[in-house]
């Protein structure tokens, strides 16, 4: 079930030693941190794993230094970005760096896109489970209609129309229209 806690509420609970809240914070930002490392900075998987763990280790260690709890997302983004750059610099010391790799070290456009993607995922997290599940499975997990149908107990023939309806509802929600919530009758 999606959490209704805001980022700042979640951070406050983590700081108070709530382990479930920490687990949720990792879950909430894991895709974002991962995407920055592998898409924006194109780190190889092993380097990306080190950066990923380092980001959350530092976040856990320094959570009390975060001045504005609601700014946890940009804080994590900056931390990830800095650690990715450190990692690229360390690699550059070991071997010559190709021009395209250096160009990839300035990924502002991709970072902006990932910020927007996180906004969309936050809206998706607030959507009813049947929409959240189907959109995430189809677009983010690349699952086939057959797999989705089996997992969600749906006839394959209804999946395309449900995806389209859920996208429409998500769009309405993001654009701030009052009919953005997905009624349970849409199942």
């Amino acid at each position, binding site marked *: 079930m999606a959490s209704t806690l805001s980022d700042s509420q979640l951070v406050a609970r983590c700081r108070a030693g709530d382990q479930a809240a920490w687990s949720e914070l*990792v879950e909430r930002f894991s*895709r974002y941190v991962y995407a920055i490392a592998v898409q924006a900075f194109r780190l190889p998987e092993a380097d990306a794993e*080190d950066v990923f*763990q380092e980001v959350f*280790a530092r976040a856990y*260690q320094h959570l009390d230094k975060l001045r504005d709890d609601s700014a946890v997302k940009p804080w994590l983004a900056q931390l990830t970005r800095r650690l990715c750059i450190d990692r690229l610099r360390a690699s550059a010391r070991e071997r010559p760096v190709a021009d395209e790799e250096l160009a990839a070290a300035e990924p502002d456009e991709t970072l902006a896109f990932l910020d*927007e993607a996180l906004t969309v995922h936050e809206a998706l997290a607030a959507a009813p489970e049947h929409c959240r599940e189907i959109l995430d499975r189809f677009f983010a997990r690349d699952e086939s209609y057959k797999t989705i149908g089996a997992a969600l107990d749906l006839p394959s023939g209804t999946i395309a129309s449900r995806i389209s309806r859920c*996208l429409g509802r998500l769009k309405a929600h993001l654009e701030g229209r009052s009919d953005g919530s997905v009624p349970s009758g849409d199942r």
Partner: protein
Amino acid sequence: MTAYDEERLAKLISALRPAPESWVRAAQELPFARRGLDEIVARAEADAAFRERLITDLEGALAAEGYEREPAVLAALRARLTSA
């Protein structure tokens, strides 16, 4: 206000794929690993030579002492040693 068409929404949802489950689990378990980390950090504070070995070659120093060397543990230790 940003306008979204379905194609763009699809691209944005696709952009954030799940991180490998084992990575997420390791990061989530950091609080549970804390007691072991506390022990290593306390030892490093009391023993300058051990601390130096950790800073020079974290993985090697931990292996020599029989400690766990999971990426999450290494990252957590790095974070604590550099902030100590």
